[in-house]
């Protein structure tokens, strides 16, 4: 799989946007099944309307999953170190979500580079539905250039290496 060069991840550079994701009723039900979250507000139109919800809406974590993909689709098998997302508008059936990301900043931590991305999903009205950040940890040099003692100093890199 592709291994990103930290040199390519400069502040302000956009990540490739995802193709629009359509949130259908079927998809909301599928997410309920996949996550085990059968809150009736997501899956029961009658109960939702009765409770004043205005009709079923998607789980916030569905769009959060799309935002995680903005990074992981691009970085391949580099694991995320963090993902933080705020749900700012409910997503109703039929909505399309446009998910994008940008390199927010890079900081060095020992011999690693921590890259933080700004992430956002917007709907057909161009309103933000999800807003957040993700971070990954990348080694600054090729892994085989590290000596054993470097690994002790760099727990973040060890995590990356354990997976990669």
């Amino acid at each position, binding site marked *: *799989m592709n291994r990103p060069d930290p040199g390519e991840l400069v502040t302000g550079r956009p990540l490739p946007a995802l193709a629009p*994701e359509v949130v259908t009723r079927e*998809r909301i039900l*599928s*997410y309920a*099944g*996949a*996550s*085990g*979250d059968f*809150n*009736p*507000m997501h899956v029961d139109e009658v*109960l*939702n309307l009765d*409770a*004043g*919800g205005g009709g079923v809406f998607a*789980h*916030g*974590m*569905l769009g*959060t*999953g*799309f935002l*995680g*993909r903005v990074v*992981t*689709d691009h970085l*391949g*098998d580099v*694991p*995320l*170190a*963090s*993902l*933080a*997302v*705020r*749900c700012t508008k*409910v997503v109703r059936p039929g909505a399309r979500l446009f998910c994008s990301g940008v390199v927010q900043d890079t900081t060095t931590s020992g011999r690693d580079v921590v890259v933080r991305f700004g992430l956002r999903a917007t709907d057909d009205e161009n309103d933000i539905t999800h807003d957040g950040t*993700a971070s990954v940890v990348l080694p600054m040099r090729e892994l085989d250039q590290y000596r054993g003692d470097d690994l002790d100093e760099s727990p973040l890199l060890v*995590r990356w290496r*354990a*997976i990669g």
Partner: protein
Amino acid sequence: MSLNARALGTTTPATPTIVEQSRIDALCDVVNDHNPAFRRGWRGGPALAPPTFINCFRDAKSQLVIDTLGVDMPRLLHGEQTMTYHRPIRAGDLVFQQVSLVEVGQKATRAMGAADFFKVWITLRNDQGELLAEAYQSFFVRGERR
């Protein structure tokens, strides 16, 4: 407030769960994730769990939120989540899920005015007690319909 404020600080027992590849597949299918790292046969070994898989461990959370805190599910809204990944979680792993109620109160919101609010801290650990992943999730509970 509709919530049981005395539930603050409650922590569930550690609930053991085996990470099933079929559950990873179900999540990847619905979020349209085709990353081979999350799929069976990746590098000849067990696949990794994708970033939002931590939300697929629910037994302890539901028990805490519904039974102990007294949340009326139709009024529940997910506000924010912050997930941090410490060690890889792989298909076949035995993980222990624990949920703590770390905030209970009221907050001003744009859409609903003052609303009941709570925050949970979810941890996933291995059988050595090492932290694999953790998440803070905050929720709002809408008031009665007028």
